[in-house]
């Protein structure tokens, strides 16, 4: 993100034939239907599994969903929890969604997140005694650089050797897990800890601005979303990214450099996911364990798809999933419904989005917009062309 230009004041000069309401309906109707259907299926699963909880109880879904909502929106602290959970999802969601725009399927947000986290950790520990004004920016930069590196590798391999990013990023996710383990359980292992983790961060810990845990990192997503939107839709670089995603050959003839755009885009994706990891570790966890369990990488794919790879859509999708994660704990306590229900809802939402054509036919939905993410046509279809470059 080298641009210093401020976000442009909306699309005042874009052609506008439909009203805003119609446009929102066009893009949001199917995701809304998918969410609704997922809640119905989730309710059925809860009812069917209720004998294992307290005994058969057809009303249990209502209790569970109410607790879910309360845990995510019921109080100021609940709202903050939602934001805290949503922030890494939005950033990592952008890391997947921007990849889609360039015709790349970044399954590596997980590894990029971890590399961001561990790079930030290394810097934070090194600067533990320094001033926060030095430690925080440098740790964040290190996190972004770590993620960037983990995005650059598959980008470079795709561009210059043809190795498909889907496979390489999956592999790099696992390499990242082991790399984190090496670094944290080895040189960075803390002094007063019972399991393999670092000490608490001091200088580099992000300040809490609001509530119990509303840390500085929440602002990152709020900055990243408009910036990403402007770059993709209003800048020449974004035009190049979208052109490469839609037709790399035409992009080459138009004087663009598809290979470097691929490298650039994957690096930018890695940077965003790395920032997500750095923010999460420095702001929320405040120390780094040797095995950091997270599903943010796959959640990010769900977020990007639900948000139709559009930054604003990703923001809303990230907020929704963040809210569900924030409320999951209360749901488990109050209704006895395991928190994994959230993952189930995510999978079912994605299922209905993937089966969009069928949903449209069955429900006779007509909206102006075409496919979920049209760029995907070029993504996995390139899987079989791995060696043709």
């Amino acid at each position, binding site marked *: 993100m080298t641009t210093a230009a401020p976000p442009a004041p909306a699309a005042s000069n874009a052609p506008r034939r439909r009203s805003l309401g119609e446009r929102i309906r066009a893009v949001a109707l199917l995701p809304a239907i998918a969410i609704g259907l997922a809640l119905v299926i989730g309710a059925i699963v809860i009812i069917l599994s209720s004998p294992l909880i307290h005994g058969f109880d057809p009303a249990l879904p209502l209790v569970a969903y109410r607790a879910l909502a309360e845990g995510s929106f019921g109080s100021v602290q609940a709202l903050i929890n939602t934001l805290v959970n949503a922030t890494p999802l939005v950033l990592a969601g952008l890391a997947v969604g921007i990849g889609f725009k360039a015709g790349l399927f970044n399954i590596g947000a997980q590894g990029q997140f971890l590399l961001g986290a561990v790079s930030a950790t290394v810097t934070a520990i090194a600067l533990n005694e320094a001033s926060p004004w030095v430690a925080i920016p440098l740790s964040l930069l290190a996190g972004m650089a770590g993620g960037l590196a983990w995005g650059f590798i598959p980008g470079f391999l795709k561009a210059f050797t043809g190795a498909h990013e889907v496979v390489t990023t999956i592999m790099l996710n696992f390499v990242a897990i082991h790399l984190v383990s090496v670094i944290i359980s080895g040189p960075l292992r803390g002094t007063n800890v019972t399991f393999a983790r670092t000490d608490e961060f001091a200088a580099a810990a992000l300040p809490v601005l609001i509530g119990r845990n509303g840390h500085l990192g929440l602002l990152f997503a709020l900055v990243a979303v408009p910036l990403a939107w402007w770059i993709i839709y209003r800048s*020449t670089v974004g035009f190049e990214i979208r052109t490469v995603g*839609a037709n790399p050959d035409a992009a080459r003839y138009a*004087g663009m450099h598809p290979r470097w755009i691929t490298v650039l885009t994957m690096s930018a994706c890695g940077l965003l996911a790395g920032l997500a990891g750095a923010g999460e570790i420095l702001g929320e966890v405040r120390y780094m364990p040797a095995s950091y369990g997270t599903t943010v990488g796959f959640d990010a794919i769900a977020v990007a798809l639900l948000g139709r790879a559009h930054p604003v859509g990703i923001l809303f999708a990230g907020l929704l999933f963040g809210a569900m994660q924030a409320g999951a704990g209360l749901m488990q306590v109050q209704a006895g419904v395991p928190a994994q229900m959230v993952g189930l809802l995510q999978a079912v939402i994605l299922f209905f989005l993937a089966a969009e054509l069928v949903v449209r036919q069955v429900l006779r939905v007509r909206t102006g917009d075409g496919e979920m993410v049209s760029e995907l046509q070029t993504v996995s279809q390139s899987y079989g062309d791995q060696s043709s470059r």
Partner: protein
Amino acid sequence: MSESESGTVAVAQGEGRRAAVLEMRGITKRYPGVLANDGIDLDVRAGEIHALLGENGAGKSTLMNILYGLAVPDQGEILLDGKPVEISGPHEAISRGISMVHQHFMLVPVLSIAENILLGEEPMANPILMDRAASHRRIRELGQRFGWEVDPEQRVGSLSVGWQQRVEILKALYRNARVLVLDEPTAVLTPQETKEIFEVLRTLRAEGYAVIFISHKLYEVLEVADRITVIRRGKVVGSRIPSETDEEDLAEMMVGREVQLTADRGESHPGEPMLVVEGLRVRDDRGRETVHDVAFEVRAGEVFGIAGVAGNGQDELVEALVGLRHVAGGSVKLGGRDVTGHSPRDLHQAGVGFVPGDRHRFGLVLAFPITDNLVLNDYYLAPYATGMRRNEEAIRTYAEQAIAEYDVRTPSATIPASNLSGGNQQKVIVAREFEGDLKLLVLDQPTRGLDVGSIEFIHRQAVARRDTGVAILLVSAELDEVLELSDRIGVMYRGRLVAVLDGRSADREEVGLLMATGGRESGVQPQTMEDGA
């Protein structure tokens, strides 16, 4: 399905020498927005080569897809040996003795010749494993009927185009076809290979096969067919016997009005050399040199045509000239300036326009609106961008102007290019590439797959640019197009420019012979199995 009495079928139409093996009656097929076939009648007899002639998009392929079970007709019926049949899929077509050689070969590159031929009709040694020895024997025998020494183990991916064609024919015969459909079989062949195919067709005719030969090349049809049926816009416009017709007559039927087989290109006034190519060498994707030491010049205000059978290095030559392919050796000068190895962007800036042969690949981003496609080269320049910021307003103003000027038929400048017809898509490319301060226009098969109206439009535009002093390099596998427009004609053969002739006095036969043989006395080249000898 419209019912008609099947009792009268046995009476063949026309001269009634032999009964029709295959009859298609009143075939109608609608696709959204297009009436692809409109009540087509067609009959083919055993021992006959029946040509189906028509322009691109006239409905030939749709009709054959219906015959082969790949498309379902909305109306009409198909009769085999006088009995109505319903063909629900290729499997059914094959089992009824209909085989098709598709225009784009339906061969699996990684499989062997034998595996490609057997696929779908595998001889079994037991219920699970195939009987390879027996099948290989049978394939060798089949090949010997035409004097071909077939190696069944050879991978199809390494075969020359001519040999792939042979495999396709063997595939059809292996299935005991009685009706053989060949869809534009000569499109990718050299004149030699074309002659050989014609010999094969005549052999098949003598053996009693019914052959349907699809083409849009008039002289080929006249040479090989027993009967010619012409279709236009989904309708049969007439049938002819070769001895009773000629090219002008067929062309008029095919296009629907009197066609000047040679366009009025007016006088040209060539000036100084604009493009000077010397000792150019280019390699293909596999690293083999496919353009050897090519030298020519194109003068301002002239059309230099390059004729040649497809695959003789033209693609690589064109890609090198517009900066899409690395130049392995030699030099390219534009207006006296050395531009060897310059990028597409530099060349575009220097005044090179390019209409690519594959417009969906290099020419357009189909998912993008017309506006973005029109500024695909200049998107980063003022007034379309200020720094990194795109100026949507400027882009749209320009687009609306270009759409009007080049007569692109579209409801709006912001609909995706994929919603346009082929002709209008090509106009978008022409509008983009013909604009600005041009020095050189590279036209690579600029009219492939277009209707006659669009072809004429593009030819007129090209001549108009020539008259303003632009140098035009026209590369086309359609010899007719090259002959029609060029002031001078270079012939490419196996990566070399073997001759340069005067465009107005060039003789079609002479150019054809050069394309086929490279001008060597020995004429016929032995056909090698391996690709790229």
